[in-house]
């Protein structure tokens, strides 16, 4: 039985440590905020210039000057600080953000990630994804194990244009978790969803990884 989106987010949330500063991408990564473990204090960063993202505002309290990087209305917290986009990415690029959780179209066995464009389709742009994968200390990808066509997404080499080269530290899919201790090591299969066997994972993965 594969993990739900919420279970994937909860698994990613287990990587959070007390005092971490974290950037969450759009989609499943956003759900990570709902699963922050008890006793762990994390501060969420939004790359459009904010530390200390609060929950969505109450109806009627939306503020057009207060949005996240997904352009959704949000609220502030007592510890919130605002800054410019230049200062925000100085923080990201300088390695001051501890962890980011992102979605991906493909991850390669060498840690490459592709999540910004599909040749032949309209290019919308990479936004801050390239900066995040290049600068944040730990990169966790949360994605479905297979594409809608059933193709593996954790593969020997990315076929799509890259977002970053050799940057991913951990992959959480709906059936398994892969991790590596550093960027010179291969990924290791460390967890599987209930009822999923190592053989199931192997059958649905083309990337090389260790057990």
């Amino acid at each position: 039985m594969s993990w739900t989106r919420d279970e994937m987010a909860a698994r990613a949330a287990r990587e959070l440590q007390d005092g971490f500063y974290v950037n969450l991408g759009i989609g499943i990564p956003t759900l990570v905020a709902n699963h922050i473990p008890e006793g762990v204090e994390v501060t969420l960063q939004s790359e459009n210039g904010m530390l200390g993202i609060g929950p969505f505002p109450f109806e009627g309290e939306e503020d057009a000057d207060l949005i996240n990087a997904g352009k959704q209305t949000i609220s502030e917290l007592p510890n919130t600080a605002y800054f410019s986009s230049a200062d925000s990415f100085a923080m990201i690029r300088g390695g001051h953000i501890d962890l980011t959780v992102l979605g991906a179209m493909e991850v390669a066995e060498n840690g490459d990630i592709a999540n910004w464009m599909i040749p032949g389709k309209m290019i919308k742009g990479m936004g801050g994804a390239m900066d995040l994968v290049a600068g944040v200390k730990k990169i966790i990808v949360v994605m479905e194990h297979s594409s809608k066509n059933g193709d593996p997404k954790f593969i020997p080499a990315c076929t799509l244009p890259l977002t970053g080269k050799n940057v991913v530290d951990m992959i959480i899919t709906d059936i398994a978790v892969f991790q590596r201790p550093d960027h010179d090591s291969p990924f290791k299969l460390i967890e599987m969803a209930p009822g999923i066997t190592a053989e199931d994972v192997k059958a649905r993965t083309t990337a090389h990884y260790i057990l």
Partner: protein
Amino acid sequence: MKKLYPDAAAALEGLLFDGMHVCAGGFGLCGIPERLIDAIRDAGTKDLTIASNNAGIDGEGLGKLLRTRQVKKMIASYVGENKEFERQYLAGELEVEFCPQGTLAERCRAGGAGIPGFYTKTGVGTQVAEGKEVKNFDGQDYILERGIFADLAIVKAWKADESGNLIFRKTARNFNQPMATAAKICVAEVEEVVPVGSLDPDGIHLPGVYVKRMIIGAPYDKKIEFRTVRQKEVAA
């Protein structure tokens, strides 16, 4: 030296020319210089190269200048949600340089700081690195990115004092601050101008040296792209 002009057209007088480069502040529709965009549209200035994180949406923000075909080239990080942009781009009518968001912010900050080039890890090994110098520092590859310095910067702030010191509000600061520094002349639109001495000198986000002209653009009907709310919990 009076910096306050009666309206956007007056504030831009003598500054616009075909083929010019413009840096425009804002993120999505948050903190965009609406009045100044309208005035550039009305002036009909053509063949613009615009550096801006986004390209507005259809009929809002820079989308207005796309609709009137005044834009030759966009330097942006994300241009989703804009059908006219998509049409012109796919038809080859619009040139686009995609630039990672942080690299774009830093390129403008660098241009404004007299730095013609800097090295960054962002984009190494990707399409973004194509044609760019790669240099290894301490065992790690970096690519050379160029500073951006435009003819004109247009930004939106919350408050200004009469000397042009600006403060922004919440996440509407975003690209407005670096963009304001990255041009020969910066024109700002603000919600309110207060007398000098009204702002905390420790709290100025952009010192007046950068702001050559300004207008009061209020009242603003600020647009929200994605309205997300939570429900108030009602006592059972």
